[in-house]
C-alpha cells in the first residue's frame, strides 16, 4: 500500500548501513540494480556491495556532452542520470514473445510460455525517473491490451528513490513538474545528507513493503533538523535548473505549427541516429522480428526496441510515410510533447535531459520548443495569425 507525501514516516540511516538495505533485498530474492560507473558513464547494473555505487563521482553534462568527473566528497548519489533508464528492466530491449513449430503433418503449433519475470529492486531512482515509470505504466497497463510482461515486472519491482542533491547539466524537471522531489511511486526515498563528518540518508517510507524492508536496516528517528536539511537540499536543486520548457498550451502550439520552418532547421542537424529514443525513459516503440531456422521447422517472434527515427519505421507498401528527417524529428517531438497528452493524459517528457546530453549534435528539445513558440508569437504579433 502506498502513502501520500503528508504522512510519510521518516528515519535516518547511516551511509554504511545501506549495505544492509542491499542485503535485505537480496535475501528476499530481489535482483538488486543500481548505478555503477562503467565505460566512462554511470549505468544501471547489478549491485552487491555499497562500493559498487559511484561514490565520489559526478558527471558534467551539456548538449551533446557527457563525461565523469571526480567529486571532492564521497557522495554516493552525487550525479543525476546517465545514458540508461530503468525501462531496460521493465520493458526489456529484447523479449521473446513465442516460439512456433512446423509439425510433420504440416500443421503449426505455437508455444507461448511467458518468461519468468524476476523480482527487481531499483536503488537510486530519481524523481524524473519515477515519473517516467508512471508514464510507462499508463502506456503499457491502461489500454485495452495491457502488456502482460511489463505488468508482471512492474508489480514486483521494489523502488528506492533518491532525491537529487544537485541538478544535472541538461535536466529541467521543475518545468515538467516531475521533480526534483520524489513525491509518489516509491517504496523508500533517500536524501543524501553529507556535511562535515557525517554521511547519512534521510529515508521516507512510501509503502508497507518499504517499511518492512527498513525494519531490517539499522536506523534512527529523523529529527526536525534532518528533515529541514533534506528539504533545503531539494529546494537548492530546484533552483539550479539550467533550462526551462514552457508547457503552457504546448500541445496546441506544436500541433498548430506542423509546417513551421523550425522543423526544416532542426532537420539540417538531426542525424536520425535514434540516440534520443534509446536514452529517453518514456520512449516505448518496439518492433517484432519473425525468424526461423534453416530447416524451416521452428520459428519464433522476438520483440525489440525500435525508434521512430528509423527509415522503415513508417513503411507501408510503396515506401515510408516519413521519408525525410524533418518529418521524423517532428514526429518524435510532437509525440513526446503534444499527442502523448491526447493518448495518455500526461506529457511524454519528464525533463531528465538525456536526449539533450546524448544527441551527437546537441539538439535541445527545450530550445526547439521555445523557437517554435517565439516564431509563432511573432507571426501572431504581425497580425498574420498562426503559421
Amino acid at each position, binding site marked *: 500500500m502506498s502513502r501520500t507525501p503528508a504522512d510519510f514516516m521518516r528515519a535516518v540511516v547511516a551511509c554504511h548501513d545501506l549495505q544492509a538495505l542491499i542485503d535485505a533485498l537480496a535475501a528476499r530474492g530481489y535482483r538488486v540494480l543500481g548505478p555503477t560507473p562503467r565505460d566512462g558513464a554511470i549505468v544501471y547494473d547489478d549491485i552487491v556491495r555499497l562500493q559498487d555505487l559511484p561514490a565520489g563521482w559526478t558527471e558534467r553534462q551539456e548538449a551533446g556532452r557527457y563525461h565523469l568527473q571526480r567529486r571532492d566528497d564521497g557522495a554516493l548519489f552525487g550525479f543525476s542520470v546517465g545514458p540508461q533508464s530503468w525501462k531496460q528492466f521493465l520493458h526489456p530491449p529484447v523479449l521473446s514473445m513465442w516460439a512456433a513449430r512446423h509439425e510433420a503433418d504440416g*500443421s503449426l503449433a505455437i508455444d507461448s510460455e511467458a518468461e519468468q519475470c524476476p523480482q527487481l529492486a531499483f536503488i537510486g531512482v530519481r524523481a524524473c525517473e519515477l515519473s517516467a515509470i508512471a508514464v510507462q505504466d499508463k502506456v503499457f497497463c491502461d489500454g485495452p491490451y495491457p502488456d502482460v510482461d511489463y505488468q508482471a515486472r512492474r508489480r514486483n519491482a521494489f523502488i528506492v528513490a533518491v532525491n537529487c542533491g544537485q541538478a544535472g547539466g541538461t535536466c529541467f524537471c521543475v518545468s515538467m513538474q516531475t521533480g526534483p522531489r520524489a513525491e509518489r511511486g516509491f517504496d523508500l526515498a533517500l536524501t543524501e545528507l553529507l556535511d562535515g563528518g557525517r554521511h547519512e540518508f534521510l529515508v521516507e517510507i512510501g509503502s508497507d513493503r518499504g517499511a518492512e524492508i527498513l525494519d531490517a536496516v539499522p536506523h534512527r528517528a529523523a529529527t526536525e533538523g534532518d528533515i529541514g536539511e533534506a528539504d533545503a537540499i531539494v529546494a537548492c536543486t530546484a533552483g539550479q535548473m539550467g533550462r526551462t520548457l514552457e508547457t503552457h498550451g504546448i500541445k496546441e502550439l506544436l500541433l498548430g505549427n506542423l509546417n513551421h520552418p523550425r522543423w526544416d532547421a532542426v532537420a539540417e542537424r538531426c542525424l536520425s541516429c535514434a540516440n534520443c529514443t534509446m536514452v529517453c525513459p518514456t520512449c516505448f*516503440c518496439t518492433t517484432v522480428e519473425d525468424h526461423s531456422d534453416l530447416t524451416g521447422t521452428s520459428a519464433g517472434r522476438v520483440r525489440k526496441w525500435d525508434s521512430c527515427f528509423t527509415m522503415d519505421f513508417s513503411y507501408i507498401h510503396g515506401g515510408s510515410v516519413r521519408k525525410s528527417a524533418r*518529418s521524423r524529428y517532428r514526429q518524435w517531438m510532437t509525440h513526446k510533447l503534444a499527442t502523448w497528452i491526447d493518448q495518455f493524459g500526461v506529457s511524454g517528457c519528464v525533463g531528465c535531459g538525456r536526449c539533450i546530453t546524448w544527441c551527437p549534435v546537441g539538439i535541445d528539445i527545450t530550445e526547439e520548443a521555445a523557437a517554435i513558440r517565439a516564431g509563432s508569437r511573432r507571426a501572431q504579433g504581425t497580425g498574420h495569425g498562426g503559421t
Partner: protein
Amino acid sequence: MVAVPASDPFVPEIYRVRRVQRELPDTVTLELAPASGARPSFEPGQFNMLYVFGIGEVPISMSARAADDGVFVHTVRDVGAVSGALARLAAGATVGVRGPFGTSWPVRAAEGADLVIVAGGLGLAPLRPAIQQVLADRGRYRRVVILVGSRTPTDLLFKSDLEEWRRRLDVDIDVTVDHADGDWRGNVGVVPALIPRAAFDPRDTLALVCGPEVMMRFTVVALRDAGVADERIYLSMERNMKCAIGLCGHCQFGAAFVCKDGPVMRYDKIAAIFAVREL
C-alpha cells in the same frame, strides 16, 4: 468499437486455409477456419494480423461479413514478403491469426439515411462486409449508392459481386476505371467525378470511403463539395503495424493509433492532419 478477442492478443491462433480463390493475377481471397475452437465474431471494417510461419505478419481486413460458416475471409494482394507468401498458400496450409482488431464501419448509424460507399482498387475488400451487411438488411436504409474505381476493367475486384449488386433495383452502382480499351462500355475517369452524378441527399448521408490515400483525399473533397458533413464521412486509414494492439507505436497517425483508434476513422476527427505531408 474495439472488440477485445477472447484469446491472447499477442499470440496467433492456428487457422487452416479452407479455400483459395484467385481474384486477380496478384490477388487471392482466402477462407480461414480455426484449427480448434470457434472463430470470434467481428464487425465490418476490422482486420486480423495474418502470420506466415517464419516470415512475418501483416494486417489484412476481413473482406466478407461474419457468416455462420465460422471462417474468416481475407482478400490479399501480393505486395511484399508476407502478403506474397499468403497469396501463394494452398488449401490446407496453416497460418496464424491474431484479432479481430480495430474500429468498424458505422453501418448501424446509417439507418434511415442515404448511404454512399466509395471504393478504390483493393479498398473494395474492407468495404464488402459493410455492403453485404447493408444489403442483407436493405429496408433499414434509404438510398444506397456504391461507387467503385479501378485501374482498368480487368483489375476490377469482385466482379461477380458487382454484377449481382448491379442487378438489384434498390442499389445505385457506378463503376469507373482510370483507362480502358474499346471493349469497355462503362465509365472511364476518376472516382471523385462520379460523386456529383450520384443521387443522394447530402444533408442526410453517411459516406464510407476506402482506397489509396490519394483517392480518399480527393473523394473527400468531392463529398464535401456535394454538401456531405465532415462528421458523416468515414475513411479506412492504413499505417505500418507490428503489434496491432497499441503498444509498439508504429501505426501512429497524429494522436491516433490506427490499430485501435482506426482503421475506420471519422473524417472530422482527422481533417486537420489528413493533408499534412509525411505525418
